[in-house]
C-alpha cells in the first residue's frame, strides 16, 4: 500500500510540476482571495489582524477544492481512469498517494499564503510550533476528505459545481479549528489554541481511515 501510495504521489506531483496548474492558477487564486478580503475589511490594521487566521484558512479551503479537482482532472485522459483501475495498484495506495500529493501542494501553498498574511496584515506568530502542528493536521484532514469527495464526483459532468457543495460543509470543522488554533498561535495563548488540535487530529485520522477502507469500492462504484 505504501509503495503504491509513493508511486501515485510521485506521478501526480510530476504531472503537477510539468503542467504548473497549481503554480499559475491555485496559488494566484489563493493570494487574490487574501488581497480581496483585505480590501473588503478596509485598511484598519486591528481588523485585519483579528481576521487573519480565518481569512488564511478560508483561502486554504477554497484552494483545497481547486487542488482536488485538479487531482482528478489528471485522470481525465482517454482511458486513464480505467488504466488506473487495471493497473494492479492497491486502491488504498491510490487514495493515500493522491491525498499525499494534494497535501504537499497545500502545505507549500500555506507557506506562501502565510508570507502574504504577514506582509498584508502585519501578523506575527508567537507559537510557531502550534501553528505548524495545526497546519499539518488540518492539511491531512483537508486532503483526505477532499480526495474522498473528489472520487465521488469525479465521473459526473457537474463535478466542478458539485464538489464544492459536497466538500465545503464537510470541511467546515477544519476551517473553524484551524482558524482558532492559529489565533491561539498568533496571540500566544497556548491553552486556547492547543485545544483545537483535538478536533483537527481526529478529523484527519477519521478521513484517512475512511479513505483507506472505502476508496476501492468508491472507485468501482463511480
Amino acid at each position, binding site marked *: 500500500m505504501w509503495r503504491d501510495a509513493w508511486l501515485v504521489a510521485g506521478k501526480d506531483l*510530476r504531472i503537477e510540476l510539468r503542467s504548473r496548474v497549481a503554480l499559475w492558477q491555485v496559488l494566484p487564486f489563493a493570494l487574490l482571495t487574501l488581497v480581496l478580503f483585505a480590501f473588503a475589511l478596509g485598511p484598519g490594521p486591528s481588523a485585519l489582524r483579528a481576521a487573519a487566521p480565518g481569512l488564511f484558512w478560508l483561502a486554504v479551503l477554497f484552494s483545497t477544492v481547486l487542488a482536488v479537482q485538479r487531482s482528478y482532472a489528471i485522470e481525465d485522459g482517454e482511458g486513464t481512469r480505467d488504466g488506473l483501475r487495471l493497473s494492479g495498484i492497491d486502491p488504498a495506495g491510490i487514495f493515500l498517494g493522491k491525498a499525499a500529493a494534494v497535501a504537499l501542494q497545500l502545505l507549500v501553498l500555506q507557506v506562501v499564503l502565510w508570507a502574504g498574511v504577514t506582509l498584508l496584515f502585519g501578523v506575527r506568530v508567537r507559537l510557531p510550533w502550534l501553528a505548524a502542528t495545526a497546519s499539518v493536521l488540518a492539511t491531512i484532514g483537508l486532503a483526505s476528505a477532499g480526495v474522498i469527495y473528489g472520487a465521488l464526483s469525479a465521473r459526473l459532468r457537474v463535478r466542478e459545481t458539485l464538489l464544492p457543495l459536497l466538500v465545503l460543509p464537510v470541511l467546515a470543522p477544519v476551517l473553524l479549528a484551524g482558524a482558532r488554533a492559529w489565533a491561539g498561535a498568533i496571540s500566544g495563548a497556548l491553552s486556547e489554541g492547543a485545544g483545537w488540535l483535538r478536533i483537527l487530529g481526529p478529523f484527519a485520522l477519521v478521513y484517512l481511515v475512511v479513505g483507506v477502507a472505502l476508496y476501492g469500492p468508491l472507485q468501482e462504484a463511480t
Partner: protein
Amino acid sequence: MSANAMAPAVLFRSAVALAGRFPALSGVDLTVDPGEIVVVLGPNGSGKTSLLRTCAGLLSVASGRAEVLGHDLRRERTEVRRVVGLLGHGVALYDELTARENVRFALRGYRLPPSLADPALERLGLVGRLARTEVGRLSAGQRRRAALALLVARAPALWLLDEPHTGLDADARVLLGGLVAEAAQGGGSVLFTSHEPELAEPLADRVVTMVGGRVGDERPGARVPPASVAVPAPGELARPLGGGPFDRGAEHRPEGDRMGSHVA
C-alpha cells in the same frame, strides 16, 4: 506459470454483463483457448467493446458463468486485472508524462521491473527523443504505439485489443500483426475487435461475430498455422520502421501541438 495455465483464457456461458444498469452483454457463450487468437467482428453497439471490458474486469457480470484464466469474474476481478492487458479506445496514458515515464509507471504498478520499458518502446519504434517526449505532444498513432509498448513489456496472459489497427500506419500494422502472433506463440491468448475484417481475419485463428450483445456466429480465421510462420526476431519487428518516420536518425519537429517527424 500459475495453476490456471491450463484453464481457458476466456470461458463465458450465458454471461450477462451490465454497464451501470444497462445490459451490455446479454448472454454470451465464448471460449478462448490458451495460445488462441480470436477476432470479434460486429456492427457498432453489438457489444464488442463491452465483451473486452468485461474480460478485463471493468464491467460487472450479473449472471451466467464468466471466467478469465481460471478466475471467476464475479469474485476475483482484481486477480483478473493483474493478468490481462487491455488496449482500449483510449490509450490510458498521461499526457504530461513521456512515453517512457508512462510505461515505467505502469510497470511499477504491476510490480514489474521498470527496465522492461526501454526494450518495449524500442520495439515499437519509440526511441530517442520520441520516448522522452510528453505523450500529449505525440500523434495519435505514436500514442497508440506507446500503449502497445506497455503490453509488450508486460506480456500479459490475455491480450484484449479494442480495434487495435485504428490510428496505426501501415508499418505499425505489420508490427502489430507480428506482436499478436508472437504473443500467441508464447502461450498467451489474444481477443481483439475490429471493423476491418481484411486486416483482422488473417491474424485470427477464429472469427466471432457479435450481434445484440451476444455471439451470433463463429468460423475459422485465416491465420497461417504457427509452425510455418517465421517469427521475426525482436530487432526484425522494428525493422519495417527503419528509414521511416520512427527511425533513430529521424529529425522531429513540432507540427501544431503534435510531435511530427521528418526524415533528415
